[in-house]
Structures are given as structure tokens and as C-alpha cells.
């Protein structure tokens, strides 16, 4: 199989490393060669962060370039817009509608663009937008936004739910498992 590309984008501290870890585990369990590339260090301090997940028969580059992402999974709306040029022409965006003001917006040096979901759709990109924060809170913790998003992403994958659940079990602490399973279901079914 040709290599498939998933980008996970968001704001440093939102939990994208857990999402990529879980995806890496899941795809390896399905027999794929997998590479996951992360950002550590300074950018993690509230900056724009991106994680690349690539899988297929044989994966070479650890990164994804412009026009190559089959999926962009975004934790924050502005970040979906920022990374849009990396989406493949027939690629799919799955985004949280949560908005987090970056420092230039906070200080008044820039404005947060309005109606971004509509603008993203108007470019012709396929966009699936949902309020993951509310769903995560419904599941029991605002921190479960990452799992809500993965639940949503699972829509687009032809993988048995059992495989997703196994990867969830392997990557989240046992005491939070039920809450995360609920978050996954809420993401999948809303």
C-alpha cells in the first residue's frame, strides 16, 4: 500500500503526543510500517505544534510535506487553517471548533479570522468540524479532546472498533479508560 499521511496539529500542551502515540500503536498492530515525528522543546510552550503520522508497506521520510496529508486532525480551528496547505487535494480535515487566541491576537497585534469553518470549506477542502471540548467535558474531562478527535477520525478508517479500543487500553491509564472510551464514542457518533 502507498504511504498514507496523517497530520495532528494543535497548540502546545493540548495532548497531541498521546494522540500520535495511540495512532502509532494502532497502525503497527494492523501490520503497517509506521513513522511518527514529534516536536519537543521550545515550541511546546503554547506554540503551534505538529505531529506527523505516516503508515504503509514501507515508510521512508518521517515528515509530511505540502499537499501530502490524507488527514489533518486539528485540536484548534486556527491551526487547521494554518496547516491547510499541507492537505492533499482529496484529503480530509477533522477539526475541533475550539478557538485559542495566540499571543499576537491577545496583544491586539493581529486578529483571529472569523468564520473559519466556512472559509475552509469554501476552498473545496473536505471539513468535518465538531465541538470536541464540549463532548470531552460530557465524557468527564476537558483533557479528553484528543480522544474525541480520534473517535471522529475513526469514521474515516476501515478498521475494527476492537483495534481502536485495544490501542486505547494500551495507551491511557486504567483509571481513565472508561472516561476515554466514552469520549471516543461521543466523537464517533456526533
Amino acid at each position, binding site marked *: 500500500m502507498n504511504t498514507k499521511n496523517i497530520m495532528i496539529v494543535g497548540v502546545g500542551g493540548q495532548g497531541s503526543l498521546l494522540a500520535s502515540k495511540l495512532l502509532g500503536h494502532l497502525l503497527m498492530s494492523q*501490520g503497517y510500517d509506521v513513522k511518527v515525528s514529534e516536536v519537543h*522543546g521550545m515550541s511546546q510552550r*503554547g*506554540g503551534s505544534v505538529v505531529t506527523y503520522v505516516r503508515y504503509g508497506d514501507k515508510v521512508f521520510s518521517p515528515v509530511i510535506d*505540502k499537499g501530502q496529508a490524507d488527514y489533518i486532525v486539528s485540536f484548534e480551528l486556527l491551526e487547521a487553517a494554518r496547516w*491547510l496547505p*499541507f492537505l492533499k487535494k482529496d484529503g480530509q480535515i477533522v477539526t475541533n471548533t475550539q478557538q485559542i487566541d495566540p*499571543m499576537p491576537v491577545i496583544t491586539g497585534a493581529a486578529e483571529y479570522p472569523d468564520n473559519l469553518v466556512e472559509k475552509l470549506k469554501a476552498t473545496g477542502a473536505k471539513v468535518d468540524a465538531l465541538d470536541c471540548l464540549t463532548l470531552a467535558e460530557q465524557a468527564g474531562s476537558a483533557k479528553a479532546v484528543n480522544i474525541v478527535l480520534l473517535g471522529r477520525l475513526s469514521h474515516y478508517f476501515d478498521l475494527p472498533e476492537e483495534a481502536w479500543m485495544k490501542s486505547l487500553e494500551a495507551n491511557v491509564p486504567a483509571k481513565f479508560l472508561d472516561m476515554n472510551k466514552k469520549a471516543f464514542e461521543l466523537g464517533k457518533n456526533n
Partner: protein
Amino acid sequence: MNDNKDKQIMLGNKAVARGLYEAGVCFISSYPGTPSTEVTEEAAKYDEIYCEWAPNEKVAMESAFGASLAGRRSFCAQKHVGLNVAADPLYTMSYTGVNAGMVIVVADDAGMHSSQNEQDSRHHAIASKVPMIEPSDSEEALEYTKLAYEISEKFDTPVLLKMCTRVAHSQSLVTVGERQVPDFPYEKDIAKYVMMPGNAKKRHPIVEERTRKLIEYAENCPLNRVEMGGTEIGIITCSTSYQYVKEVFGDSVSVLKLGMTNPLPEKLIKDFASKVDKLFVVEELDPIIENHVKALGLTVTGKELLPVCDEFSQNLIAKAFGKDTADSFALSDNIPMRPPVMCAGCPHRGLFYTLKKNNCTVLGDIGCYTLGAVPPLGAIEMTLCMGASIGALHGFNKVRGKESEGKTVAVIGDSTFMHSGMTGLANVAYNQSNSTIIIVDNSITGMTGHQQNPTTGYNIKGDPAGKIDLEALCKAMGFERVRVVDPYNLKQCDEVLKEELAVAAPSVIISRRPCALLKYVKHNPPLTVNHDKCVGCKSCMKIGCPAISMKNGKATIDNTLCVGCNVCSQLCPVGAFV
């Protein structure tokens, strides 16, 4: 589909740690630095390996050398700039060689994701005449680490294992093996290990002979391999560049992949060149392989096609070779940047606000607090390298005298101070400049992800350890004026800063408050803004807290971010924060 049953997905740095475990390494000493930190952190999870954080890279390397001398395989890791600090022992360890194998990770950061420069560590390998090997994914990271110990012992040399951000911080599949611990008796050998001129003079020719043998090894070793494909184009490459080349070209070109980048082979390269029509070198940063190939008298294209600056990617290489890249989408809106910021509740914020308010010239250092240079605080005016703030302040004050003494300060973190600030402080005490040094003590090494250091009282495993008392240390070095402030208390910060800048004596201010992200730190409940009171004056916006924004002309607090540090409420003229 592959059978992944016996495989694990592993971060490159973790794969090196696994390699260290399997190679029977017994001693590891490192100083953290992105992108090298996780090697030592992951290795510390194996109870069989003694691991520690040293105060700096030089001490770490010397300690690892001692362990090798005593007869056990040893290791140290650092980022590229860390190797500059440890260059002194490295260059002479090249002469002494080792007893048990010794491997040194140096992790480069092309693209400067988390670094102050983009230097190419291969220069250190060449200059110190120490072999360097470079994995291109996690599987190679594990295998090459083990092989590095064999090379180290076979050729009696330390070995540099060069990582880069994209290998260190990418996960890929590995197969793990068992641990075996070799033991080498320690034997006194003054001629080999005491590098005074008479002995060193005899060691230098041994180093040159070793390089000759290593070149022979490089001609046939498993680290360097030819992958013949189409012969129109032949590409010599290494590290992560190999992955981009394969991504773009697959088997349509021939590739010479060099896993050992110092010393470089000669016959192997000439032989490869003779089998292809046109020869290229694809390497990040400096043209090191390219210059070697040119010195062999071959015609090759490298840096005329590919940049010296920044990291590579598949599209960059595709475009350089005239291949098409994929189309994509574009938005017409301007997307505001999202630079990294100090976290909500960061103890550095109150201090930098105070420095800005007093119109200080701030010479900064390396750590999270470097973000004090970013708007709206914009307080730091210089950052160079670990420890430089204090040395630079001394020189600045010596030439500007009274003009600068009353308004110029150095700001350095607790870990950075332990790393290389103490010697700068000794210089201020000894050569007597009227300098004010601020140690921002957040009780942890923050930027690299919370590593312990000699001031925290805990070791790498989180167990109690020796604890250096900063106040006592500064006093012992001759500073009569050592003040401690709480950076959450703006009034106290302001008063103490003014006093110490005004006094005609060198002084140290310790701004002490643990990092807000530390697990043991208890937070106050989030604040809220009483919108009936808020007059929209934006006084609270001057501290650049990510939890505060203006909505409809009124300050608003994001209660998922706010940790109740109360710095903003001290700025509010109408008491709107509750």
C-alpha cells in the same frame, strides 16, 4: 502487510537507550538538551544502568571517560552546542583512547526547532579525529549504538553517535534483543592515559594510524551501503536525508548511504561514482561529504542545488531535482502566528514585568526564560549561550561603568547557573564589576522537560540527592548582597531590584518560585474578572499571560489555563480580578 509481532514502535532517542541497555552499558552521565534529552531519560528507566544528570556536558563526558577507564562501557549525551562545552575532554580522549567502550551522542538541530544555532557537529568529529556514525531511523539507532561500542573497543577510541531532530524525535519500528555486559580490567598505563607533552607526542601518530585503519573499515563496513537502482543519477547521502531521497526517488536512482560520516571511505565512493552517470551529495547543513568527494577528484553536485540553511524535506529535494510536487489549498486570510509563550502562572513573568517596568537592559541566558524577549514583555536584549549572561554583564559594566550599572542585569536559570554561570560569577567577584545578577530559580530544568539539577535536591530517578544552597554558594564566592524574592509578589520584586541596582556593590537576586507545571505545585483556583468593575484599561495585558484576553472591551480569563498566580490582579487599578 508486515508481521509486526516482534516489533515495537520506538522514539529514536529511546531506541538509542535500548541499544545502550543491550550493549551492557553501566554508566551514563549527561546534561539535558533538545533533541538529545530522552536518550538519558529512557536509559534511566533500566535499573541495570547507573544514570545521572551532570551539571554540564564537560563534567558528564569526563565522568563517562572515568567509567570507561575503570573498565565498564559508558555513555554521555548532549545537543550539538553541548558538545562545544565538552570539546575539551573529547579532543584529548581521542589521544588516550578508551578502556571499555565509550559512546557519545551528539544531537544536531537542523531547522533550529529548539536551539540558538544550527552548527554541524560533523566538524567536531573531523577536528577531534573521532569516528562518527549516523543512524537514519530508530532501528538503525538501536543497531548502530551497539555497533558503536564494538568500533570503540576495536579501534581504541571514543565514538560519536550523531542524531538529528528528525531521527531523535521520530518513532519507527524496532526489534529488541538481550543485554550482555562485558568487563575490562583496569590496568595502570601512564603512557596512554597521562596526556603530558612527552606522552601525547607519542599518541598523536597512533591517532593518525587509527584513522587510516578506520578508513579501511569504512570501505567495507555494514554502516555504509550501496543500493543500486537506476544509474543515471547516483546520490551519496546520510542520516535523515537518506529517508527524503528514498521518499522522492524510490529505486529510480542509485544511493550510497553512509552510516559512518567520519572518517569517510575513498574506494567505496570512487567505485560508486564510476557506476553512475551523474553524482550528487544530499546532506543537511554543511558540505562535508561533498568537499570530501571533491577532494577525491570527482565531479559532484551538492550545495549549488541544496541549501546549507534549515532542515530538508521530501518536497525540498523533489523541487531541487526539478520534480513536481503536489498542489494544495490556500486561504486568503492572514493567519496570525502562534509563537511559544511563557505558560500561565510561569514564575518568570512577574520578574520580567518588573525588569521591563524599570526599563532595565537585560542580558539573558538559555532556558524557558529566553521567552522574556517575546512581546509584550520584550525585556531580554541578548542571549548567546549557556552561562553567557553573567560574563557579558561583567564586560558590559566594565566599559559602560555608572551609565549601565544602575540599570543592567543578567538573568540566568538555576540549571544554567549550575551549568556554567558559577564561573562567570567568580569573575564578577574576583575582578569586581558592580553587577546585578538575577538567578531565576524555578527549581527544575524547565525547557527540556523537567530534569533535576544540583539545586533541586533530587536525582534523575526522583530520589533524594545532594542539594546545593544557592544563597550559601553566592555568599561563599564573595557576594555580600544576596537577596531572595518571590516573583509572584510584584511590589517586593520592584523594591529589591531598585535597591540592588542603586547600591555600589555586586549583588545576586534569587527570584524563587517553582515552575507552575511541576506536579507537586498546588495552584489557587482560577481568577475571574468582574466585568462591572473592569474599565478595559488593558493594564493586565502588559504581562502577556495566555489566560487573559480582551473580549468586547473587557478583560476575560480562560479558566482552563489560569492557575491563580494573582500577578494580573496586582496590576488592576480597579480591583476587577476576583
